[in-house]
């Protein structure tokens, strides 16, 4: 649309300049209207995203009472604490493991669903997406109850099979395992949906041609499916990396960072320091540590989305 207007403008410049430049006026009016239409959005982004981001940097350089400027004091204080490095470690382990298993389960289930006759696919897809639809805080509450040591589902099942009960949330390593498990459960359906959509967009002829050449199922997967899906896999993995790395709900509800601070993520640690202990600057500094990692992931996602946009046309 914009192109057509511009070509009109360039092909009839004589007319437009001779008479009181109506075309140009129209264009000017048009971009003014467009700008006005974007104004609410720009206001939201500037006031509630960009301003808080810069304010966060300023806030992180104040002392606890917010009366004195202490430069990078909060950052150096954090970096001198063992707990902080444990948070860095746990966030990294959490994000990498959870995203890996989400992507793997998503890929497997997407293939399984894609194998089914077209009629049944909808039903299965609808059923398998349920974990993603339940608000995470509420399903985490359900998981918490299943992890209950004495009186509940998992340990009853284990005991009736002759095993010992597992201290799911009171042993630090089992607690780490549990929060990752819940995140995988919640996020895998998202990958399933994305990969299923991507699988559908791979042209059938490619597989037919490969069959004629005698390719095995595994060869088809490695040489056709994976290359065709590479971009969408990269986008979903990076996107999920951001969301998983910044996750708050699961850890806050199930362990609140314990036992011995070993399940804390950046978000829950920032919440503990900033809101619970009332040291807003220190909390702001903690969440700012997430920024570089998120920014790198964001740049790569943007590149992937642009490329995909061009491929689709």
């Amino acid at each position, binding site marked *: 649309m914009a192109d057509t207007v511009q070509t009109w403008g360039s092909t009839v410049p004589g007319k437009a300049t001779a008479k009181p430049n109506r075309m140009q006026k129209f264009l000017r009016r048009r971009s003014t209207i467009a700008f006005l239409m974007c104004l609410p959005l720009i206001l939201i982004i500037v006031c509630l995203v960009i301003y808080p981001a810069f304010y966060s940097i300023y806030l992180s350089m104040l002392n606890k009472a917010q009366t004195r400027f202490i430069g990078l004091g909060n950052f150096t204080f954090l970096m001198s604490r063992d707990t902080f490095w444990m948070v860095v470690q746990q966030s990294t382990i959490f994000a990498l493991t959870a995203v890996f298993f989400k992507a793997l389960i998503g890929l497997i289930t997407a293939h399984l669903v894609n194998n089914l006759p077209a009629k049944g696919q909808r039903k299965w897809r609808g059923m398998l997406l349920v974990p993603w639809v339940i608000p995470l805080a509420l399903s985490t509450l*359900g998981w918490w109850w299943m992890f209950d040591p004495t009186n509940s589902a998992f340990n*009853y099942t284990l005991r009736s099979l002759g095993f010992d009960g597992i201290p799911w949330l009171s042993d630090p390593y089992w607690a780490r395992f549990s929060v990752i498990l819940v995140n995988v*459960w919640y996020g895998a359906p998202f990958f399933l949906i994305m990969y299923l959509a991507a699988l559908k967009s791979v042209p059938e002829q490619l597989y037919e041609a490969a069959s004629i050449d005698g390719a095995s199922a595994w060869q088809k997967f490695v040489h056709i499916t994976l290359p065709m899906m590479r971009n969408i896999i990269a986008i979903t993995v990076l996107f999920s990396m951001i969301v998983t790395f910044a996750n708050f709900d699961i850890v806050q509800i199930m362990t609140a960072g314990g036992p011995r601070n070993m399940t804390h993520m950046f978000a829950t640690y920032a919440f503990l320091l900033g809101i619970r202990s009332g040291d807003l600057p220190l909390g702001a500094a903690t969440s700012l540590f997430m920024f570089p990692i998120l920014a790198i992931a964001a740049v790569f996602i943007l590149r992937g989305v642009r490329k995909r946009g061009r491929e689709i046309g």
Partner: protein
Amino acid sequence: MSSITASVPSSKAMRSGASLRRSRRWALYASYFFLILFAIFFLAPPYYMIVTALKTDGEMAKLATNPWFIYDGVTLDQFRILLKNTDFLIYFKNTAIVTVCVVAITMVVSVLAAFALGRMRFWGSSMLATGIFLTYLVPDTLLFIPMFQIVKTLGLLNSYWGMVLVYPTLTVPFCTWIMIGYFQSIPKELDEAALIDGAGHMQMLLKIFVPVALPGIIAAMIFAFTVSWAAFVYPMAFLYSSDQQVLTVGTVTSLIRGDVYKWGMLMAGALLAAAPPLVIYAFLMDYYIAGLTAGATKG
């Protein structure tokens, strides 16, 4: 001669066709088998929540019976206690108010912006579109502490109207982003025809683009609804009194009192709180999925 050469490959093809069909069938059985395993993994928690919510407290206290099943009869007592003795309905009302306001604000802001960005190029429009996408990637846990200070300064701390103010940062960028894609996919001839007929920009948007892009608008609405219904970090940080609390945080924190967890009632609360998104999903699944996949494919 020709009949021999013709018959050999055809019988071979038939044989390989039969084995292909057999292996296809086995692949199908295997697919079903593993899908059932995955379905058990994915659906066990909601199933267990339902079972717990329908049990009596007496049965819950017994450690001998299998917790995955109900032996002492189904009861709705847990729901009755939840609705009568707790502030659950207040949370529900607050969440409903917040969500309706956020969805309305989101749709107005993002449809206007997406129309301008998708159909009318102007100075800085592609930069703005990129900026919107990047904003979408900013997680709420990155900015909740400065937001706390801002909300406090505005006097909206411990008020659900503060949520109406901050939730649009979570919903507007993504909704605008997918709406840009939907608006761009509408043929150019449509608005040219409207321009010739003398329609203004607002008329064009309301009479032509909104009806044509309705699937996209529904997908965006569902997204805004689910995000603001499920939001957890902001209410957790900004709200603390019962009369202002929303469902997610209210269910997880306020319903838990003392050392004895009333699991039956908690699960009843969690299920009721999760019901609206689930109902919308059940009826509008295709729109839901379209919205989900549009983020990475449109652009």
